[in-house]
Structures are given as C-alpha cells and as structure tokens.
C-alpha cells in the first residue's frame, strides 16, 4: 500500500506551475498591436476575428498543453493552426472545417502519451460517453425549449452550412480549448489538491467567466443569466464526468452536444 511503502514529503507544486507566461505575454502583445492597428487603419474583413480566435482559444489551449507537460512549441503549433483555421473560415463556411486540424493535433499528442495529465490517455468508459450524451442532450434540449419559449428565438434548419461551420468551430476551438484548460488542466489539478466540491467551484467559476467575457455572447440580461445557468450546469456535469471516468473525452462530448443545440438557435458562430 502506498501509505506504507512509498516515501512522502508534505507540500505540493503551485496551482499555476508551468504556465507559459512568455507565450501568453506574446499573444497579448499581438492582440494589443492588432487593436492599435485596427484603430488607425481599416483591416481586412474578419482580421480581428482571426486574431481573437487564435489569441483567445490559442491561449487557453497552449496553457493546457503546457500544464500537461508539453513543450512550448506544442502551444505555438495550436495557436498557428487556430489562426490558419480562423483565416480559412473567413473565406467561407467550408473553410471552417480547417478547425478540425486542431483536434487532430491534440489527438496526435495524446497518442504519444503527452496529454496524460489532461485525461487524454487510455480507454474511455462507454457508460461515461452515454452519460455525456444524455447530459449534453438534456441541457441542450432544455435550452432550446426554454429559449424558444421565453426569448422567442427560432431554430435554424438542421444541416445549414452556418451551423456546420459553427460545429467545426466548437469542435476545433471553443469546446476543445475550454475543456482542455478548465477541465483537463484546472479542475484536474484542483481536485488533486482540494476536495471535489472546491475544484468544481473553481473550474466552474473560471469556465463561466470565460464565456461571460466572450464578445460573441449577446449582452442582454436574459442571455447572460441563461449563459450562467446553463454553463454552470454544463461545467458541473462535465467536472463530475471527468471525476467519474478520469477522462476528458466525455466532457468534450457533452459540451459538443450542448453547443450543437445552442448553435441551432442561430446566435453563435
């Protein structure tokens, strides 16, 4: 038994250890430079979106990869891929498929056992995947019903190019980056230091805060309250899925299902 045979020394590493500070500072400088440039000269259409996507999601993903022990170059690759995908997406809905390069890059790293610390190694329990689909479908379905009833929004036709582009964006940037950082990195580290409830509260607060500052979220009170409500439940559910299964995949699946429902409202992307 570990407690009897393995040496132990009190103390743990800082929660934010291995944060790629230089990379994050560089990304922030690029964003500031882009903002300054945009304020002085007109930029091509979608240029700021490319910068925003690459900087925002790239910073989250690069931080998660660094916390998992990957070399800083891995994070840079992710940022470059996100920038390229965002640029391709400006050319047309089909260009958004380029976002799928990011999960392929992450899967490539996971296959080489470099993302064990993010819960991306080993088999995924089928029951956890089923529970993830149920959770995402329940929250997404509830969102569709309650939003259509209270906010009067309409559901987009399924299969529209815009919806598919939004789904690709979620799979490659939005959901992947958020789940990797807030679940795989932050929650996983926190639950190994404190109780499940504390880790859940921390990860959920950070997760909700990330979406509240997202410029794509409508700023009306109804939407903000709704976002807080659903994202809190989604985050809590995903934390529980991660804790139960030890894998990040179920959380990604439930978030993808939920955001798929959200994209049907026609407010995202």
């Amino acid at each position: 038994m570990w407690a009897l045979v393995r040496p132990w020394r009190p103390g743990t590493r800082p929660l934010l250890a291995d944060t790629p500070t230089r990379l994050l500072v560089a990304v922030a400088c690029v964003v500031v430079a882009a903002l300054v440039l945009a304020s002085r000269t007109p930029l091509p259409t979608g240029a700021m979106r490319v910068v925003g996507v690459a900087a925002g999601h790239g910073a989250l993903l690069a931080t998660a990869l660094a916390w998992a022990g990957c070399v800083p170059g891995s994070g840079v690759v992710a940022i470059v891929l996100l920038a390229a995908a965002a640029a391709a997406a400006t050319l047309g809905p089909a260009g958004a498929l380029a976002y799928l390069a990011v999960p392929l890059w992450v899967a490539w790293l996971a296959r080489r056992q470099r993302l064990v610390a993010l819960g991306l190694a080993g088999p995924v329990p089928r029951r956890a995947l089923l529970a993830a689909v149920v959770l995402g479908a329940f929250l997404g379905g509830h969102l569709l019903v309650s939003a259509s009833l209270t906010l009067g929004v309409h559901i987009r036709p399924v299969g529209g190019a815009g919806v598919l582009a939004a789904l690709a964006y979620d799979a490659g940037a939005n959901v992947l980056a958020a789940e990797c950082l807030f679940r795989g990195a932050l929650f996983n580290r926190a639950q190994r230091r404190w109780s499940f409830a504390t880790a859940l509260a921390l990860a959920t607060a950070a997760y909700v805060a990330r979406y509240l500052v997202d410029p794509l979220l409508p700023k009306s009170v109804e939407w903000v309250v709704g976002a807080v409500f659903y994202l809190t439940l989604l985050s809590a559910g995903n934390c529980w899925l991660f804790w139960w299964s030890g894998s990040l995949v179920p959380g990604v699946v439930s978030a993808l299902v939920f955001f798929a429902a959200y994209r049907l409202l026609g407010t995202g992307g």
Partner: protein
Amino acid sequence: MTRGLAAAAALTLAVVTALIALTGGGPASVLRHGFLLPVVALALAFGRLGGALGTGAALGLYAPVVLLEIERSGLTPETIEGLVTCAVVAGVGALGGALTTRARRQRARYETILTVQRALAGATPLEAALGRLRTVLIDRLRAADVGLVVRDGAREVVAGADRVAAGSVAAGVLAVGTSVFVPDVGEGRRPRRVFATPLLVAGQPIGVLAVERVAELDRDERAALDALGVHIAVALENARLTSRQRRFAEELERSVASATRRLEELDRAKSAFVAVASHELRTPLTALQGFSEILAARSLAPEEVRRMAGIMRAEAARLGRIVSDLLDLSRIERGLEPTLHRVPVAVEAALVATADLFRRGVADTIVVDCAPALPPVDADPDALERILTNLVSNAVKYSPPGSEVRLCARRAGAMVEVAVLDRGAGIPGDALARIFEPYYRVPATSTVRGTGLGLAVVKALVEAHGGVIHVESARDAGTRVAFSLPAVP
C-alpha cells in the same frame, strides 16, 4: 429496485409536467405540488445525489413554466407562488438528501464499528486478526486499499505491505501521532486520496490505520476515520492483551507441566537414592560389624588383625564420605554454599596424594601430569581432596581394569585447570547435561556402586571456590572432567 424507483420518479415528473402543460394551469397549478413526490422519493432513496438530481430535474421542467409567466405578466401572485414552489422543491430536495446521506453514513459507521469488533473478537494471532480486519475495512469503507500497522512490543505487525518504509506516511504518523491527509498520491487517472490516522491508546500511538480511496474523502469522513481509529485501537489493544494473556497461560501450563515432570523424576530419583543409599550405608556397616565380631570372638594372628583393621578403616572412610556427601547435599538443597577454609594449596601434591590413594596392584595405572612451575591454588584442602577423590573414584570405577587414568594440571590465566581423564565407556550424550544433578545416575551404570551425589557435590564445591567444571565425553573413547580453581597470585 433502485432503477425502478428512478424510472418511476422520472415518469412522475414527466406526467406532472405534461398535465400542467395540457391543463394550462400555469405556475399556480395545484398539480405543481406533484413535483415534491419524486424529489422526496429520490432524496430518501439516493441521499444527497438523488435529492440534487431530483431537484434539478423538477426545477428544469417547472422553471420554464414559471419564467415564461414572469416574462409575460411580471411578478403576480401566481408567479410568486411558482417561485415559492421552486424554493420549496429545492429546499426539500437538498435537506432530504443531506439528512438521508447523513443518517446513512452514521449507520454505516456504527455497522463498521460492530464489524471491526467482530473481526477482532476471535481468538487468533495478531497477524491473522489484522489481515481479517483489513479485508473487512476495504469492503466497509469502499476503499481502494487499507493498511494497518500495530506495534506489538519491539516488533511491528503490518497488514497491507511487508513492512513500513522509512519516510512513508505511516512512519510519520507513527512517529508524531497525528493524522495525515494526502489529497492525491499522484498515480492514476483519478485522484487517490490517502488518510492515515494513529491508533492511540492512552495518548500513545500503538499503530496506524491508512485508507486509500479513489473517491472523495471529505472532512466528515476523515473525522469518522479518526473515531474509527480510536475504536480499532481499543479493540486491538484488547485483542493484544488477550493474546498475551493466552500466551502467558500457555507458557505457565508448559512450565507447570515441566516442573511436575521434573518433580516426578526427582521423586523417583530420591526413591532410588534411598534404596541405593541404604545399600551403600549397609555395606560398610555390615563389613565393620562382621570384622569387629570376628576380632572380638577370635584370637587371630597379628597380620590377619592388621588386614582386617585395614579393611575396617577403608569401609569407615567410605562411610564417612557418604555421610559428608549427604550433609553437603543437604546444605546445597537449602541454598547454602559449603563452608570453606581457603589457604594456598599445592596442586601437584594433592594430585599425587589422591593418585596414591587409588593406585591398584603392581601396575601404575594412575598418572599425574602437572605443568612445571604450577602456582598453588586458593582452596580449602579438604574440599579439594573431596573433589579429587570423587572424580578419580568415578574414573577408576567406570574404566576397564588396567586402563590408564590421567590427572593433569596446568595454568589457565588466573586459574589453574585440573583435569581427570579416563578411557572408559564414556557418557551418553543425553546424560551429559544431567550428570551434575543430585541423585542422577547414568542408567547404564546401575550395576556400579554409587549414590548419585558425588558430581553434584563436586560441582557445588568447585563453584563455591569461584571455579567452573565441565565434562567432555565420547562413546568408547573415555571421559574428561576438568575444573578450575583460582591460582594464588
């Protein structure tokens, strides 16, 4: 059962929601109270998790009805009723779930304590009891692993590992006597929590209970484990005392049995001694009586009178030795040392005198071999004479006629070692350890005259001088009896 209940609760929620929607009752519909039923049932059946899931599902279905009405009409008495219902459902779910979980944990703790007491109640060795307790605790505590360490005197009994490694959590708890919680041991996809609590008896750690779990181990449960540690410590202490008492009783039984056997042997030896001593005393007395009657009744030639007087003197001396041995043995058995009057005694002269006493016939079969410049010994001359007489007498008695008996002496540090060697049949190995016991006689020598007291007296006399005596013997190769006495500086 649980799946059926969950399905029934889900069905009830769906039916209540559908009825409210179909009847158009709105947030103040009397049917809204139907949401309480599945929430309470789930809370009672599954505790905190069931209450939370039931509440979440009920509010998820009922909240759109209330929120839609609030958006349409604002805060009216109906919408306020709806909000109150939401609060009641949430409160009932949370409270019912929390109370159920708490009651279950409490019951589980009592059952665990009972299980621990049952596991340690059997009359088994500590190792087996710990192993059984560990198995029970893994099951009861839903633990991935459980380790137990108990100090039993100088040794540590461990269950769950071969030993306690230095620097481990258990070693630290044993040393300091306070609990340690490790939120994650750093292995595996899920956090493995470890909690180690000391087993305290009278404030002193007698062991450690370590629990490893791939699940939550919250503050309440850690406090419960601390309390469980106290119960286990008391139960283990009782088991240890019982085990020790049992061992003591068994040892006592063995000692009593051994002492009884020894007393029986002693009794038999004494009975045999009485018979032998009677015979040994009677023989010289008979000789003295017979020769004295002959001397009184007849006129004999002077040579014949001298011969008879010599025989009478030898028999009287023999009688005197037996009586002296009996007196010495009596003192030894009363725990008294023989009275000694120590003076410097020349060893070589004593050996020669003893050899002269036992020389038989023409052939000189008793050889004295002393190292040159041997110092005198600090001894009682009479005691030394009796020691030598006894040993040489035995050597002569148990040697074939005509075989050599050798008396040797040499210096050994501050002592002088004297050895008597014969070429007799030797002493059997199993008898060697007992030949200095009073009344003991080697069974194969029962045809030879003797009382079984001589060597016991010799040993007592040697030890009274501060010396030691030991015997070496080989089958059919002879016996060597050596003793040491302090040399005069």
